[in-house]
């Protein structure tokens, strides 16, 4: 429930920012939506098991699903590379405005 509410907030904010003018806002919106999706993937693993999947420390009985974690870890880094690329585009050329009309 709590995670779902968080996701709702983030997606709403992210979509709002993405639909504005200007590359920077789009990037920020994308960041938010990206985080939200990552949390959604975590949620898919089941959030009632919340122990670290570190078998040297915890027994696996209540360990969280490690597969979404691996996916999300990968996703975070890829999202980062996309974000810095988009920021580069925002900072080159003339302005970061994405629309001709004012």
């Amino acid at each position, binding site marked *: *429930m709590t995670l779902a509410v968080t996701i709702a907030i983030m997606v*709403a904010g992210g979509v709002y920012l993405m639909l504005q003018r200007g590359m920077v806002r789009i990037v920020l919106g994308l960041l938010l939506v990206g985080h939200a999706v990552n949390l*959604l993937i975590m*949620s898919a693993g089941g959030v009632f098991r919340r122990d670290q*999947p570190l078998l040297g420390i915890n027994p696996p009985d209540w360990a969280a699903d490690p597969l979404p974690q691996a996916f999300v870890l*990968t996703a975070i*880094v890829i999202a980062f590379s996309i974000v810095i690329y988009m920021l*580069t585009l925002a900072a080159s050329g003339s302005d970061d405005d994405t629309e001709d009309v004012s």
Partner: protein
Amino acid sequence: MLLLTSILVLAVTVLSIPLVERVLGRNTGWFAAAVLAALTALIAAQAPQVLGSGEALTYSVPWMPQIGVEFHLRMDALGWMFTLLVTGVGALIMAYSTRYFPPGRRLGFYLLMTLFAFAMTGLVLADDVVLLYVFWELTTITSFYLIGLSGPGASRPAIRTFLITALGGLALLGAVVLLVVRTGTTQLSTILADQSWTQDTSFTALVAFLVVGAVFTKSAQFPFHYWLPDAMAASTPVSAYLHAAAMVKAGIYLAMRFTPAFGEVLVWNTALIAFGLITAVVGAVFALQQHDLKRLAAYSTVSQLGFLIAVIGIGTPEALVAAAAHTVAHALFKSALFMVVGLVDHEAGTRDLRDLGGLARRMPVTAGIATLASLSMAGIPPLLGFVSKEYLFAGLLGAPGGPWAGVLAGAVAVGAAAFTFAYSFRFVHSAFFGEPRGKRRAEQEDVHEAPVAFWGPASLSALGGLVLGLAVPVLDPLVNGVSQDTTGTAAEAHLLLWHGFNPELAMSALAIGLGALLVWRTASGDSYAGRALLPVDGPSVFERIHSALISTGRRVGDLTRTDTVAFHLGTPVVVVLVLATAVLWLGIDIPAPAGQTSRPLDWLLVGLMGVAVLGAVLTRSRLAALALIGVAGFTTALWLFFLGAFDVALTQLLVEVLTVVVAVLVLRRLPRRFHPVTRKRSALTAVIAIAAGSVAGVAAFALTGRRELSSAASYFLDNAPEDTGGTNVVNTILVDYRAFDTLGELVVLGVAGLIIIAVLRSTDLLPVHQARKPSVPVTNPVFEAVPNTVLMRTVAKYLLPILVVWSLYLLVRGHNEPGGGFIGGLVGGSAFALTYLAASSDAAARIRLAYPTIIGSGVLVALGTGLLGFLEGSFLLPLHAEIPLPGGEYFHFTTALIFDVGVYLVVVGVLLAALNELGLESGDGTDRAAPPPSPPGTSGGGNADETAPSSEGSGATAAGVDTTTTGGAR
């Protein structure tokens, strides 16, 4: 074994053509002809088994065993007949080609012609529907290239032909897929033998419809008939082989092959008979109209194919006997006629009947060949064409649907045959007899007979029709075998030249009589030729449909063609909303939650996130928005930590820090505030955003967290230490279980780094924005960069080595404890970011490491580790070793660690690239020389009002007054 040999011999021939052609040039044809002739003899020698005992030759070898597709070959009487046609006629045409072309290289032609012979042989021998389809398309493709070979003018005809026949190929593919799915086997003979699927009438009708589509397009049936005359843009040997004897017969073959299944399906019978007869009439009428000998021959082929299709549509054993006999007859006389067209064209310099005439005196042998072949085409005894046409008539009289149907079919056939007689007469008479005509009359005096090597093949073909006509009973085993293969009943037919007075004979006589009348009334077609019978012709209709399709596609594209980014970003969101609404409307069953999903402390994070996002949405200041999104990112990291994902939380945290650093470097080049938008738009986007958020939240609540641990997760948790020697399960997934994913991700990351470099090498960065420039007097102490940064520099100086060592430690321990390549790399990258931000000037900030090399070497290290895995069997399989340590302990070493080093290098490299490329004033980390540095601290002022201050004092990273810089000198 013979089947495999034939296919292999042809394949080897194709491959050897480039070599042979280098030596022989146009004479490569002799080589190809010899191979095909040898194969013809070899296959003909199988007659006792295939025709005599009625046992098919088979061969099979697994091809794609996973999906049950095998390389099945099978040669029954039907296959035997078509194989002989392909190789036999092929041999003649190849020999003919050696003299048709002027001396010189003919690599493309011979390569494609032998490839076609290979494909066509494979097509008629294939006993697997997938294989059949592959060969079918291969013939289409070779035909396309062979037509296109004739030069620029042939490109549109080649494309038109290709599109039409490829359309049929798609229909065949559809039929193949349906059959394989329904019957569970890909073996053609099994599908045809097991007729249980034909009980489902609608399914059978659908498959029949698709097969008919393939047959009609390939064999040029009305309304697709026009591609065949269109394809006459190809050189004459191509026309003779592909568009008369072989490729267009692929449709005939397919129709005969599927007769066991569809012989009694009404759609099949009706379509084949009706369209076959229409094609026969249309082709014959148009043939008589042509001035061009080659187009005449092409339309005649259309007409003859129509006869064949119609009689196959009857589906009785007698009809199939007729179809078999006529297939042989047509292949012989039509290939001969096409070769004659080439001979005339070659020797007389034209093939326009208006400029020909009286050639018989100059080219007696060619005239003889033409006459013989035309007599067979017109159905005059004692040629094979006469016998086969008699049987065609007999077969058509047996049309299903009552006696009137037979009479009607017979009457139409007689009409078409009358035109056949007329155009056959026109072919021979207008070209070879009478007086030379037209503007080329003078030149006709110098025409000579072609050399024997040129007319030889044509004469063999034409004489074949005569010999087989006189000795027609030798075909009995063949036609009966074909009828056995296609209808399951041996027809017990005995082909005879003379079999008494019967309706067929009367029909033949009537056709000849009407034909003669037609010849007389139209001055052997001259008074009637060239007149437009229809307001449109096939190619222009095709072009109109084609361009209409293209412009429709463009109009569909126009619906969404806009430069407005928000539209493209918003559309998918709205579509998802619509889908979600539909799902909510219909409702779905949701299982109960699998456990307690919320904990009280979580609400803290919800509140934090709510505040951060609300602020980020409302503010119009870029810097504030960035900071608030940063807060949201940190909250996400906390969430991840709460969810038991320590590694992920750490990664998120580090990425968040670095994102803010990079974003700050960019923001100082942009205005302080966001671009304004209208209130109306804000309201609309807010509505979309709130709806999207609600849907996402509902989906997250309703669709996740309602099952126990997945089996994959259980596997990883139970087996990771044993499989990989690591206890950090997430890390083992990244570098052991799913290392290929990680490798892909690594490459994406590296490419992003390289793209950033590439973009900034080609486009200049924006200068630091005017609004960000200091407005205080230059004497102000904030301009003194070096003293201002002393604290940060000192901290960074000692922190850098510690951070680097720590990052390496994180990297090494990642397999068992939180850490790993990503986290290590990010920590290492942060160390550089720190020194970078703390530097007092651009020159001091620049990190002199070849970051493209670091990125590349990281990818190479990861790839190399992956290749090492082949030592134990597969790509990216980690190798393990126990390295003894002093003191009796063992260190568990795995190549997964080296893989992680690759990850580390790429992450560090990309971060360095971003910092250096975006951070420096010029936006260029390496290439552009910075202005000569002034002594530190002495030249702070004086240039504050320049657009792009470049001296150290006001340098980018050290600009303490840069309102966006969060670290650094401030």
